[in-house]
C-alpha cells in the first residue's frame, strides 16, 4: 500500500496550556537512520491519547525517547514544565512516567509477584507497594492465582496483564502502553480494554500506541497519526477517525 502523506493538522492549539507532557519537535537517529523526524505531541492530565500509524514509522521510538531509553537529537521533552530529555531512565520513572513496552519486557525467570514488586522499584512507589498491588489485582483478577508462577510459563494475555500491572505498581502518573493488544485473542483484548478504562478512571494519563482502530475508537480522547517519522494528523478522536486519508488507509472505507 502506497501511503500519501497528508499534511493536515487539525485542532493544533487546543490543548497546549494544560499539557502535562510536552514533546516538541524531537529527532531520533539509529546510526544514520532518522527514525523520528521532528515529532511534537502533548498530553493533558487524565487524558488518553492514542498514537496510531503503520509499523516501523517511529511510534515505539517516540515512547522510548520519552522514557529516556534512546537519546534525542534536537527538540525537547518537558514534563510539568521541566525538561526531562537529558535524564536517565530511572529518574524519568521516578517522576511517574512509566512505559509498558511492546512485548512487555517482563523478567522471564521471575514470578508474577516478583515482577509486580519490581514495578514498584523506585523509592516512592516501594512504600505504597501493598496498596498498588491490591489495585493491580483488582484490575486483573486473573493474576491472583498466578502470583507464584514464573512469567515464562504464562499465557500471552496473562503476560500482558502483568506488564500493565507492573507499570501501575510504580504509582504512575503517565502510563505509556505500547501495543498492549498485540497478539491477544478478542476475548482477552476485551478484558484488557476494560482494565485500561478502569486505569483511566483512577486519574492516570495514558498514551496508547495501537494499530487496532477498534480499541482506539473505544478508548481514546485524542489521536496522533504518525507516518514516516512525522505526525501527519492529530486531533480529537472523531476528527481524526473521520478524516478521509485515515478512512482510506486505516479503516478500509473508501
Amino acid at each position, binding site marked *: 500500500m502506497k501511503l500519501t502523506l497528508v499534511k493536515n493538522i487539525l485542532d493544533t492549539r487546543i490543548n497546549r496550556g494544560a499539557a502535562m507532557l510536552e514533546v516538541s519537535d524531537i529527532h531520533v537517529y539509529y546510526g544514520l537512520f532518522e527514525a523520528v523526524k521532528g515529532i511534537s505531541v502533548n498530553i493533558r492530565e487524565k487524558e488518553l491519547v492514542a498514537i496510531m500509524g503503520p509499523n516501523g514509522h517511529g511510534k515505539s521510538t517516540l515512547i522510548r525517547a520519552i*522514557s529516556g*531509553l534512546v537519546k534525542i537529537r534536537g527538540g525537547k521533552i518537558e514534563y510539568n514544565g521541566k525538561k526531562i530529555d537529558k535524564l*536517565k*531512565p*530511572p529518574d524519568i*520513572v*521516578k517522576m511517574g512516567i*512509566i*512505559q*509498558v*513496552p511492546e512485548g*512487555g*519486557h*517482563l*523478567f*522471564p*525467570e*521471575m514470578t508474577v509477584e*516478583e515482577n509486580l*514488586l*519490581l*514495578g514498584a*522499584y*523506585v523509592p516512592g512507589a*516501594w512504600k505504597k507497594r501493598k496498596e498498588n498491588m491490591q489495585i493491580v489485582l483488582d484490575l486483573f483478577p486473573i493474576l491472583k492465582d498466578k502470583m507464584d508462577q514464573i512469567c515464562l510459563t504464562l499465557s500471552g494475555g496473562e503476560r500482558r496483564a502483568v506488564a500493565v500491572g*507492573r507499570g501501575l505498581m*510504580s504509582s504512575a502518573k503517565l502510563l505509556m502502553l505500547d501495543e498492549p493488544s498485540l497478539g491477544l485473542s478478542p476475548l482477552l483484548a476485551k478484558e484488557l480494554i476494560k482494565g485500561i478504562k478502569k486505569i483511566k478512571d483512577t486519574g492516570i494519563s495514558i498514551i496508547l500506541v495501537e494499530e487496532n482502530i477498534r480499541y482506539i475508537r473505544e478508548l481514546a480522547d485524542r489521536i496522533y497519526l504518525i507516518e514516516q517519522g512525522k505526525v501527519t494528523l492529530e486531533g480529537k478522536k472523531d476528527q481524526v477517525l473521520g478524516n478521509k486519508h485515515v478512512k482510506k488507509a486505516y479503516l478500509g472505507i473508501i
Partner: protein
Amino acid sequence: MFSDIASAIIIGLVLGSMYALAAVGLTLVWGVLKILNFAHGGFITLGAYFVWVGITFLGGNYVISFLLVMGLTFLLGFVLNAGVIRPLQGRPESETNIFIATLATSIIIENLIIVGFGGRYKSIPEMASGSLTLGSISINFQQMIIMAVAPVFLVGLMYYLKKMKSGMAVRAVAQDADGAAIVGIDSERVYSYTIAIGALMAGVAGVLLGVIFYLSPGMGGDPLVRALFIMVLGGMGSVKGTIYGAYIIGIIDALARYFIGMFWASPILFVMFILLLLLRPQGLFGVKV
C-alpha cells in the same frame, strides 16, 4: 571400596563447597554483565591474604578478620568496576577487551602480593584442630568448617537475590536489561554492586581455601579454572545451577582422585569440560540467575 566411595563423596562435598564459593561470584557477574571477570582468581587470593593479615597483624580474631575480608573485597570490587570494567563496557570488542583487562588486573594483584608479602607460603592458623574418624573415613574439623560455612554464604546469596529488593534488581537486570530500565533500575549501579558482590564471594572462597591449604600469590588460579567449568555446567549466569554444578564437579574431582589417580583428575575434568561445551553448552540445568 565402599568406604572409598563414601570418603570420596565427603571430600567431594568439601571441594564442592569451595568451588561453589569460587564460582558463584563469577557466574553472577557473567549473568548480569555478560563479561568474564578474570580478576576473580586475584580476588580469591586477596581474600586469603586479607584474612592472614587480619589474624597475624590485627589480633588474631577470626570473625573480625572475616568481616575485614568481606568489607575489603567488596570495596575493591567497586574499584575494579570503576577503574577497569566500566570504562570498557559497551564498546565494540568489549568482551575481548574486558577479558584482557581483567587478566591484566589479576597480574597486578598477584605481583602486588609478591611485592607486599613475598612468594613464600603463608598459613592461616587453624580455626579448629583435630579430626573425626568413622571407620576408614577421616575428615578434619577444618574441612567440616568449610562444609558448614560455604552453605551459609551460598544460602545468604540466594536469599539476597530472591528476597531483597536490590537482589531482585540484580536478577532483573540479568534477565531483561530494558525491562529493568523501564521499572527505574539504574543498571550502572547494579553492575557495580554485582561486581562487588562477586568480589566478596571470591574473597570468602579465598579465606576457606586459605584455611585448608596455604597462601601463595598465584593460589587463585586453580579455583578460577575449576570455576569456569562449573559456570558452564550450571548454565552460564545461573547461580543455582552453579551451586549444583560445583558440588557435582567436587564429587567427580574427588572420585577421579580416588579411583584414577591425582595426576589425571584435572585432565579428566578438562576433557569433560570440552565435551560439555560441545554437546551441551547451555549447561545441565538451564536455570537463569
